[in-house]
């Protein structure tokens, strides 16, 4: 059974401390749109996915230090990859957002290491597609995504900031400590608590 995830802007975590924006977009079932591309090369579905995800992929890449023009290019490539690989999307493994974030990540690594001919994007791709070890532990990937999102909203602003820097911007713990001018031990304990809360919220899915 598959529970579709409704992406709804009002439910989103305000990552910046800026004002919340109400996006005009209606509820969107990203899983269904990807599956519609897989089944019938649905161009309308592509447009909807692109409108929702490409600007977010671009923003995420920029937060990770990718220059704006390259981020734009990689965001386009990411959505083209969604078009091409739609048949490989497996909602029992990861929700649409997680799957798309992983595609963007692989393209970013590929772009950064192209002259060095790194095989790392292929390796990450292979791991992404590995069969789950125990079939009885399979659960809906969207369920994991929405619980992780909920766990993020429950963090204190201090905790959320270290989680963002460590996991979204990809800084080492040392660099997080420098950026926030706080002791390394504080970074580690905040992250430990945040990860424990996140994993706690996923416990019954294991």
């Amino acid at each position: 059974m598959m529970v579709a995830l409704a992406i709804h802007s009002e439910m989103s975590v305000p990552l910046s401390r800026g004002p919340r924006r109400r996006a005009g977009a209606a509820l969107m079932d990203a899983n269904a749109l990807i599956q519609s591309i897989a089944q019938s090369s649905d161009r309308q579905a592509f447009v909807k996915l692109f409108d929702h995800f490409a600007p977010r992929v671009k923003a995420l890449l920029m937060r990770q230090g990718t220059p704006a023009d390259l981020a734009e290019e990689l965001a386009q490539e990411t959505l083209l990859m969604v078009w091409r690989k739609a048949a490989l999307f497996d909602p029992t493994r990861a929700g649409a957002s997680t799957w798309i974030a992983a595609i963007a990540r692989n393209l970013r690594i590929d772009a950064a290491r192209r002259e060095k001919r790194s095989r790392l994007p292929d390796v990450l791709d292979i791991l992404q597609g590995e069969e789950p070890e125990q079939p009885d532990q399979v659960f809906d990937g969207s369920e994991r995504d929405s619980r992780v999102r909920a766990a993020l909203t429950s963090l204190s602003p201090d905790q959320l900031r270290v989680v963002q820097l460590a996991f979204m911007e990809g800084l080492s713990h040392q660099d997080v400590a420098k950026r926030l001018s706080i002791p390394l031990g504080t970074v580690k304990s905040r992250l430990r608590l945040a990860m424990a809360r996140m994993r706690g919220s996923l416990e019954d899915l294991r």
Partner: protein
Amino acid sequence: MSMSHRPSDETLAAFAAGRLDEGLALVVAAHVEINPQTRRDLADIDALSGAFLDSIEPEPMGIDARSLSIALPQRSAEPPQRPSAPPDAAGLAVLAPYTLGRWQSVGRGVALRRVEVPSSDSRVFMLRAQPGTRLPAHRHTGAEWTTIISGAYQHEYGRYAAGDFDEADDRHAHTPVVDPYEGCTCIVALTGNVRFEGMIGRLLQPFVRL
């Protein structure tokens, strides 16, 4: 399988973000492939990226999706094929993108084969040791990351069995002893320099020299 001999969240985050040296990353990838618990931990970290993607303030795109959708390539009916484990790579699919050298005996029940990782600053190899082999004592100036593929070994810091990850750095000197019944096959990445002692050490040295 041990529950404790696994990469830290910091190492996994660096791996997931593509910030690790490719050789070290390949050893982590081998561990992720065969250790279901770490695979779940990595899936949690990937789900964080998904959550960030959902909640981030969008950046306007310079191109319109409708104009792009007209020029979309024809989708093939067949889903793209995933690579499978290359022959004689101990079943590891993550080795598929790499060229593997020939197994070479270095004597005393130890054989090595190189894994060619051109972009890497580390040296990567698979190591196969007969039951009961005592590997040479050694020290490093850099990191030595190992994933045990089958069998086990034991050293000063514990017993490491199939699926475990062993992260040693320059603070560690160790003398691994291979399981007396099962032997051991593992994949290793080394950064910096390693100084071996003893006879197998001298035989290993050419393989791991910078």
